[in-house]
């Protein structure tokens, strides 16, 4: 009997060792948290083929939408932690807990690579009676409750940006009109259904170039190379430096418990893939800032991001539950 157990164990370790040595020995599933054609989808579909080359394996990507991305997140969390199911996601799972959208977030995952981050900015309808951030704030003060801001639901980029404005300026009396995403909201902006939209720079840049919408301010500490003439919001009010730079990001994750060498292999593959010239050009064209971080650095980035953003939303009164309940410390504490 003892011999049998020993044999079984050695067989297991042998086969396990063999499996690890050959990773990937079968197709890897890449679960994209958002719909086809969106930012996350575009980023993942353009970097992954290069990562596949470096990895020497096949990554089959599929979109799994619904529940603000929670369905995909739960799916990957419930899959075997063997590195054959990747989560390709954006920043919002870090807000699930405080927004009451789910009980899992990236703390259940190991980051393979945080690829890039976007820069938020404020754009306005071309006919809006203000031309920059200062004029907009003045106009809102004169006409409280009249200006229409686009939104994408609680926890979305616009809610964080308006939360920042509320904290820094001590209030923001506007109408917040919810849309399904920044695409539909920017369409509505051009049609005049809303006046101002906080959007990621990459989504707005083509509309600005064509003169279909006007930029008010970039939400960063300095102007963006893509739009050098648009002032940074800190040049209007230095109070924003507390929160900035801030932005949505894209990353590839595996469930916690995935063997370290698999994580390392995947991390190396994505790091290599992100160095591809075509990918860099694509990200640059869309105004994304390359990050390409992994390991502890990525872990720290996620923790800091979550602390800053959840407490910002908490202070703006937008959360369902306090970050404290989940052990998310206030930044600086």
């Amino acid at each position, binding site marked *: 009997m003892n011999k049998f157990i020993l044999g079984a164990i050695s067989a297991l370790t042998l086969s396990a060792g063999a499996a690890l040595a050959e990773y990937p020995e079968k197709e890897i599933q890449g679960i994209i948290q958002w719909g086809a054609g969106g930012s996350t*989808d575009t980023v993942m579909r353009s970097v992954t*083929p290069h990562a596949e080359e470096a990895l020497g394996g096949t990554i089959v990507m599929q979109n799994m939408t619904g*529940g603000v991305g929670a369905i995909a997140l739960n799916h990957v969390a419930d899959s075997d932690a063997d590195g054959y199911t990747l989560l390709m996601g954006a920043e919002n799972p870090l807000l699930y807990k405080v927004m009451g959208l789910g009980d899992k977030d990236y703390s259940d995952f190991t980051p393979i690579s945080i690829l890039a981050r976007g820069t938020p900015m404020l754009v306005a309808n071309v006919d809006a009676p203000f031309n920059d951030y200062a004029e907009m704030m003045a106009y809102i003060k004169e006409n409280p409750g009249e200006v229409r801001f686009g939104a994408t639901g609680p926890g979305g980029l616009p809610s964080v940006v308006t939360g920042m404005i509320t904290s820094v300026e001590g209030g923001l009396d506007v109408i917040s009109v919810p849309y399904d995403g920044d695409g539909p909201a920017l*369409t509505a902006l051009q*049609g005049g*259904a*809303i006046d101002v939209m906080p959007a990621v720079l990459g989504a707005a840049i083509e509309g600005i170039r064509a003169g279909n919408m006007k930029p008010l301010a970039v939400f960063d500490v300095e102007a963006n190379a893509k739009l050098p003439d648009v002032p940074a919001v800190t040049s209007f009010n230095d109070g924003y430096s507390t929160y900035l730079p801030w932005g949505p990001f894209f990353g590839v994750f595996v469930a916690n418990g995935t063997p370290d060498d698999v994580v390392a292999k995947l991390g190396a593959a994505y790091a290599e893939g992100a160095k591809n010239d075509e990918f860099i*050009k694509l990200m640059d064209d869309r105004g994304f800032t390359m990050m390409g971080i992994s390991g502890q650095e990525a872990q720290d980035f996620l923790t800091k991001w979550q602390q800053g953003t959840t407490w910002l939303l908490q202070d703006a009164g937008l959360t369902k539950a306090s970050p404290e309940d989940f052990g998310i410390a206030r930044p600086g504490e």
Partner: protein
Amino acid sequence: MTALWDFLTVFTQPQLLLLVGLGTFAGVYVGAIPGLSVTMAVSILISFTFSWDVYPAISLMIGIYMGGVYGGSRTAILLNIPGAPSAIATALDGYPLAKRGEAGQAIGVTTVMSFIGGFVGIGVLALAAPLVSDFALRFQPRDYMLLAVLGILLVGSLSQGSLVKGIFAGALGIAIGAVGRDPLTFTERFTFDLQIMTGGVSFIAVMIGMFGVSEALLQLHHVDKDAVRQKITRIVPSLSTVRKHLPLSLQTSTIGVVIGALPGTGGDIAALMAYDHAKRVTKNPERAFGDGAMEGLVAPETANNAAVGGAFIPMMTLGIPGDAVTAIMIGALFIHGLNPGPMLMIDQPDMFWFIVGALVTANIFMLIFGLTGIRLFTKIVEMPRSVLIPLIMLLSIVGAYAVNNSLTDVYWMLGFGVFGYFMRHYGYPLGPVILGVILSRLLDDNWRRAIISEREDFWRFMGGVVSSPLSLTLLIAVILIFVSQTPLWSRGKARLFRKKES
């Protein structure tokens, strides 16, 4: 002159021609299988064509798109299972034709009409794209809401038999569409604290269940009956048939282009609205609607193919997707290093004319593939029921699973299939349920957006409606169509015309 050259790119390069043809052929079959959607096919192609040049990649996608929108009508006519949401209206008169043994003729008419509709859509795209996209941008949330109300009034024409049962079915559909996390505030609605409900009910699963499974269950009653022999002597419709329906097809194509160009609506709503329009304007159909009227095939099929050209209009002029497929194509253009947006037509006009050329080619291929192979397809309905029914069940399950790779959707699909069977059994129409599910979000989201924009003040909202010509026109249309369905209308009309006739 360069525009003409760009337009002809596809014709002059055999490789591109082949890819468009291949795409169209694949599209017809992908579209015909319920649950396998064009959206899915195109998003798979993005990874697949990643390393290709941009022209071949786009050629293949456009072929699949054009073929797929058309392909949905095949199973709608032959099996009463729409291959895609845009073919729901096609089933209403197409399937009765197949039951009479005239499936061949129905497919023939459908193909030619899809071809005509496709051309109208492409024509508008090529000649008036900036004009139409300006118009489409002008639609405010309140206009989308009024459009949805207009759509809900279609319940009247989709309910064969009892209007009361139709209204019940439509309301049920709207309620089903509201299940899950509300997309605007993420509040849970009708979820009863069940994890499974928070994702909502997949509308494709409802459609496949209600049409596919319920059809299979219904056919179990006649499992011994011989299948209807299909007449396939006359497939290509005569010139006089085409000419007869030409005025209607041009009207419904226009509906298709406009609805397709609106960023919030697509071919499914366009086809249903076109069907309703046909029912209104056709004074004396040879056969009653719902009983195999040709007009009932012409209208939705021209409209949904015209919507393809329509969907490209905001994509090419503004970088705004007209529907889910063009949304993915925008992503594909990004990946291939282009910047789709309002500047694309100025920076890279060749791309615009190339896409127009590829669409024209795909449309021609669609006509060719549509008119051949019908014999083989009609054999499907001539299969013994003991084989056909399990096949329908299999297709339905695979289709429902494939939409989101979710087993939950299969359960929903089966549940709605059984439910749909009982609904049919007791004379409740299924069309309005699907209509309700499609329109539920359009109505709900836009009503809330509209009223939120007016600081939740109803009178300010009405002021906005009355002061905008577009909203006012839509409101008047809603009122007119509503009144025309009540007894008040026929009484009033009778009184008005009595004097003249006497």
